[in-house]
């Protein structure tokens, strides 16, 4: 009898957490569908902020960084790109406490990198398919920081990408490369999938094979 009660309590907690997550996901979808910088978008942002507060401050930087969709007032509707320094990378890779502990997919790319550009449509499709299934996804460009408001958002706009976008702004790339994966030499493109505990469960250097990546995502999201 007691065991049944415990199980019932656990199921209720799980359902509650799932609904809370779905609420966040739906606000992201509203903002994406409404266009960029609209009143509805700002209202949705406020709702998200209130949701975060309701969570009692458990929303970490990762959730804050990746929970916000790209927003811009550019006439080109270019996605907003945030500068990411070494501390930001560290926070991005840090394990997240429940209920925001989700797998994290990171793609390193650059506008001048041909295979990066070639694989981007596949990544956009993957983001669109898996975002609502509880995946954090960050695209990190290593273009020159001078491309923050020009080349990088222009390319992302052409790709119709809503993937949270960052531009690496560090004086030395080596610590970043090593913090992501000590076996990585720095070649682009490079894609890394971390499980919700922060462990690398899939990595690929060079142009991704979408089928392989989707299989890895299905596996990690089912765990």
């Amino acid at each position: 009898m007691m065991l049944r009660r415990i199980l019932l309590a656990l199921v209720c907690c799980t359902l509650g957490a799932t609904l809370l997550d779905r609420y966040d996901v739906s606000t992201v979808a509203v903002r994406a569908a409404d266009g960029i910088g609209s009143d509805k978008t700002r209202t949705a942002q406020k709702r998200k902020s209130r949701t975060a507060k309701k969570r009692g401050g458990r929303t970490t930087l990762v959730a804050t960084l990746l929970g916000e969709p790209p927003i811009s007032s550019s006439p080109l509707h270019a996605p907003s790109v945030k500068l990411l320094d070494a501390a930001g990378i560290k926070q991005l890779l840090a394990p997240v406490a429940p209920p925001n502990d989700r797998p994290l997919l990171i793609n390193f790319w650059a506008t001048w990198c041909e295979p990066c550009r070639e694989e981007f449509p596949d990544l956009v499709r993957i983001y669109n398919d898996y975002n609502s299934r509880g995946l954090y996804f960050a695209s990190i460009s290593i273009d020159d920081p001078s491309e923050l408001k020009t080349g990088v958002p222009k390319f992302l706009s052409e790709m119709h990408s809503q993937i949270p976008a960052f531009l690496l702004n560090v004086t030395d790339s080596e610590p970043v490369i090593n913090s992501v994966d000590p076996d990585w030499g720095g070649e682009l493109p490079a894609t890394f999938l971390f499980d919700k505990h922060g462990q690398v469960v899939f990595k690929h250097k060079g142009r991704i094979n979408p089928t392989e990546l989707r299989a890895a995502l299905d596996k990690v999201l089912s765990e």
Partner: protein
Amino acid sequence: MKRSYTFALTLALALSLVAFGSLWRTARAADEPAPAIIGMMIEDFTLPDPNGQAHTLASLKGKHGTVLIFIATRCPVSNGYNERMEKLAQDYAAHGVSVIGINANSTEPASEVKSHAAEKHLTFAILKDNGNKIADRLGAAHTPEAFLLDASNKLVYHGRIDNSLNPANVSANDLRDAIDAILAGKPIAKTEAKAFGCSIKRAE
């Protein structure tokens, strides 16, 4: 009792092997070349230049050391280092250290490598690694990526040329520091250093 102990031990061993295999697969994808190991001896090899003439490492090596740099014609990072690579070759030629460029990109034919070198005024030897044999042997993954061999062809440094694509922001000349160290007979302070680059487009 003894039988159950043996069974438990066998089971634990089997599980460990499975776990190790899984970790190994996670750590290294099957299509990734094995990384270069500092201290390994690089055996002599033969590669053609863009005109098709074959050269051995032995015929091009420097008296005191050799720098192999995997380069590209279309990679903006590699192209950002053209002047620095040429200067490196000129600066160290008199010190008995030779620079050899290796193009292992299957997407960049020998004719393009030849015209690129002429256009960018690259005067050091450039070889075409058709089929990525040498790139695979060294574990080269991107461009530009340098491998410094000492006088006996032992790998003593591997990685970036320096720490910034923008020459104005360079604060660590890792490759030059390593060359200076072997010329001075001193240990190399940093034997491996990383930077972003373009992946080598390997032959299918």
